[in-house]
């Protein structure tokens, strides 16, 4: 099957000097669960930003879902992002004055059109059918992260990108969120997840390690 992500010599400088990514080569197959590990400042978030079309590289080429995104800019990049990727963040980033349901509907709205019934179903799917009309401040960390997972999934993206999704969660909530990722992976979703926790990375099919913007070792999947 054609890979969903291909990166060739992907390089990113900040302010023309800090080399956050240094000629990274990477291939991810559809349905794969990839974990990215590495010390702080090694370029994990930068890599995820590029794959998620939130930022553009200085050098190298990048294909996502068969499209060479290094050729896209501005409006096209925005459109490609909302059609292709779902994003999950360490700090959840829910809109504080909107309910769980409205937060999910916001993603629908920016994608195409808000559909309350569908948003409700997505929240029920992550076990939040009883928390639809709660504000983020009225939800636990794990519940907030599950809202943001529902939000990331609502537009059926080909690719799920998560930057330390369990970094702010306690053990019980972490387990619940990881269980969700496991289910999503089993259903065929492609997941790229940044994590510090080897235990979390252990759930992934494959782990790559970054250091100073370079891939230093890649652990292949046991049997893919």
């Amino acid at each position, binding site marked *: 099957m054609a890979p969903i992500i291909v990166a060739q010599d992907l390089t990113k400088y900040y302010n023309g000097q800090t080399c956050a990514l240094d000629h990274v080569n990477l291939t991810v197959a559809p349905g794969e669960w990839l974990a990215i590990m590495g010390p702080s400042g090694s370029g994990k978030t930068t890599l995820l930003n590029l794959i998620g079309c939130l930022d553009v590289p200085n050098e190298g080429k990048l294909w996502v879902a068969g499209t060479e995104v290094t050729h896209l800019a501005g409006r096209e990049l925005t459109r490609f992002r909302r059609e292709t990727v779902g994003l999950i963040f360490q700090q959840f980033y829910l809109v504080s004055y909107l309910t769980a349901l409205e937060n999910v509907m916001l993603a629908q709205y*920016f994608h195409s059109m808000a559909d309350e019934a569908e948003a409700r179903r997505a929240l029920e799917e992550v076990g939040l059918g009883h928390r639809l009309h709660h504000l983020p401040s009225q939800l636990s960390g794990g519940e907030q992260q599950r809202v943001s997972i529902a939000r990331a999934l609502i537009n059926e993206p080909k690719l799920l990108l998560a930057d330390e999704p369990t970094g702010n969660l306690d053990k019980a909530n972490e387990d619940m969120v990881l269980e969700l990722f496991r289910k999503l992976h089993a259903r065929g979703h492609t997941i790229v997840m940044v994590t510090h926790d080897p235990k979390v990375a252990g759930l992934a099919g494959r782990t790559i390690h970054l250091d100073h913007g370079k891939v230093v070792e890649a652990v292949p999947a046991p049997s893919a």
Partner: protein
Amino acid sequence: MLLRVVLKSLGRRRLRVGVAVLAVALGGLLVSSLALLSLSVGQQSRQELQAYGANLLLVPETVSAPVGLGSLGMGTVTEQAQLPSSALAYLQQRSQPVVAYAPFVYGVVRLPDNSRSVVVAGTEWDGARTLSPWWQVKGSWPQGPEQVLVGVEAVKRLGLAPGDEITLTGTKGPAVFRVAGVLNTGGSEDSQVVMSLGQAQALLGRTGVDLVLLRAQAGGPALEPLAKELEVAIPGAQARVVRQVASAERTVVAKVQGLMALVALLVLAAASLAVFSTMATTVMERTPEVGLMKALGAGPGRIGLLFTLEAVFIGAAGGLVGAVVGLGVAQAVGRSVFGSYVPISPWAFPLTVTVALGVSLLASLMPIRRAVRIEAARILRGE
């Protein structure tokens, strides 16, 4: 959906948004009341005087303020300097450029109960009606010599109605009159009994008149030479250009309006500062939110629209509140300063809302531009 986001976001920042709305409302209030007042004051008194009314005034030379009726004590009436009736004869035979004239004689007469009195004004009906077309009569204009008009205030005070008889006692003893109609002029006539010149002179024992209102065809600078000419032709008379009074009044009105406009400008500037700070703060505070929205696929248009709607809400709410309160303020000012309600101009309302919207949008321009430029990538970096 966007509207829901806007309303909820505004609702969460009620206090700060409220302050901005209030600031805009204050500016709107001044714009609204200024517009109402200048639209009405501009027209009212002056136009009447200039278009139809008298533009020259003849008074006896020795009296400096002939209209000041307060100085006419009961006993001093006969000692009052007056214009001789020859003055009227002169005006009658001299047509050009005098279009119309109305003589007035004033005096105080007693009522039958002897304790109350009323001011009687004598004039020539034709001249008075030509020079004061705004005089309104309920009932009918006097037909015979014994018929009189009674001012709307006097009617109330004396308990009279059209058709009633009234006995007035002047220096020449009592005489009986019939009330033909109730006179409403908005001026001092409202508290007087107005009758024909001859009747008044007979009742008061006078032969001359206290003042003559004139309308000459000539306007503006041509009035001064005419005034001089009349003073020479009629010994003992002093001629004044009425328009000078009106234009002095206009200068005062213009100055007051200028001051109000200046205050309105300053308040609008302060209001735009308040809106600017509210919008700038909200954009700054919501940088992660905007980053998230962009990460979710919102284009610059959507983000711009979101904050523009907030600015529109602040402007519209402030404008509406300002327009309504301004209406009240204009009425209060109109009543206390000009003694009448200000007519409600259909322009004042849309004008105020438009100005408020303009100020709010203009002040929000920079913060909105800033919001539109927030990068989606910031959010993953956790900035």
